[in-house]
């Protein structure tokens, strides 16, 4: 079955979104077709805005509308510590737990040779320059605790060897609410090694 060309085009474009197949795309297309004119205008403006107005902050590489971003411009934040994360969404999670405390550096990826991503493909060199320029005292490496995140963390500590900056890594262990029975040996080892005094 073929729909008129504008509807067919919309279906094809919606199908490019992750997790959307033809059936879902068709349902969404008909929802849009039956929606108010004002909603369609609002939606199309939002779509063009994210391409026109959003850019990367020249300091931390966060997604922002103005450069430097709101976080980098915030004078209340700790100026000695920098939290290094993989993606802007990871920054948001830390920000939700520690509102207005840290400043960030977003790498936009991790070292992953299997995908051909090396240190030059993410914002690691910019991190090194920033640490020197802003006289940072500590960096908290908050990349994911998987092979790619750990490699990136080790690489950061390697390139900053010899500098005065303190490099810390987020702790690994049993998650709050987790169960020891289901925990793998590597996590158990890590949680025992990083145990705390009570």
């Amino acid at each position, binding site marked *: 079955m073929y729909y008129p060309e504008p509807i067919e085009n919309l279906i094809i474009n919606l199908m490019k979104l992750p997790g959307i197949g033809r059936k879902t795309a068709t349902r969404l297309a008909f929802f849009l077709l039956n929606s108010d004119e004002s909603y369609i205008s609002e939606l199309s403006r939002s779509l063009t805005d994210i391409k026109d107005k959003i850019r990367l902050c020249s300091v931390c590489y966060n997604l922002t509308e103005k450069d430097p971003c709101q976080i980098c411009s915030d004078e209340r934040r700790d100026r000695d510590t920098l939290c290094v994360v993989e993606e802007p969404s990871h920054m948001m999670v830390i920000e939700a737990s520690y509102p207005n405390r840290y400043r960030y550096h977003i790498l936009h990826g991790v070292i992953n*040779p299997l995908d051909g991503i090396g240190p030059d493909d993410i914002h690691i060199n910019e991190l090194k320059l920033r640490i020197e320029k802003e006289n940072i005292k500590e960096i908290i490496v908050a990349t994911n605790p998987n092979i790619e995140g750990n490699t990136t963390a080790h690489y950061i500590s390697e390139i900053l060897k010899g500098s005065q900056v303190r490099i810390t890594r987020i702790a690994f262990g049993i998650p709050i609410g987790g169960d020891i029975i289901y*925990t*793998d*040996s590597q996590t158990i080892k890590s949680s025992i090694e990083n145990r705390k005094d009570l």
Partner: protein
Amino acid sequence: MPLQKDEAIVLTKKAYGESDRIVRLFTLSGGKITAIAKGGSKSQKRFMNTLEPFNHIRIEYFKKQTKTMARIENADIIESNSGIELNLKRICTASFFVEFADKLTKEGERNIELFNGLKGILDDVKNIEFTSSDIVFYLLRILGCLGFMPNFNTCVQCGRDVPDEDKVFFSRERGGILCPVCSQAIPFKSYPRGIIRGLSSFVRGDRCNGDLDFLTYAQDIMEGFISFHLDVEIKSYKLLKNLI
């Protein structure tokens, strides 16, 4: 299909949807398989930390004959990838061999020799930093497991044994050495004496730490051979090459 139990090496991982993960595994009994782990990115009970590249794991999975993808029910770590992440060269080396095996094998082709070879390499990478010589040595070993070993002993044109002192002509296209007579008719690249003999001793399992010249020429032979015959782009090799 009944639940199958096997050992596997995790080759690659890819997030799928909200919480699922698609992984490519090289299994001991079933060769390479692609499998989906429902909840693989989030489940802390069934898959926590197991479906990560370079892990040696024990899995339970279903595979219907009509489906291309298996479904993993459970996974446990036998030997973790811990140690590979310690520096860039180690992860690039591990990635190179894993990617090489991944790209040169077909789904469902059992190859126990390759499984053991890959496992041995990953175990070694965790403990030692590979030299260029180690990389060439293991690459030849993997090529041997895959049945793509270049011929360093007899002329690929006439089949005669070539004495060590005459092993200087290598035909990338024919995948091996040429004798002085056949080299007049077939395109080749010539190498200083001792280079091909050195590679030939690697094939026999004699490891030696060749000098810089030897390694440069050996890499040239292997790169030419792989790019002509296997026609695959190994992404991790670009990074590894800058480090060796």
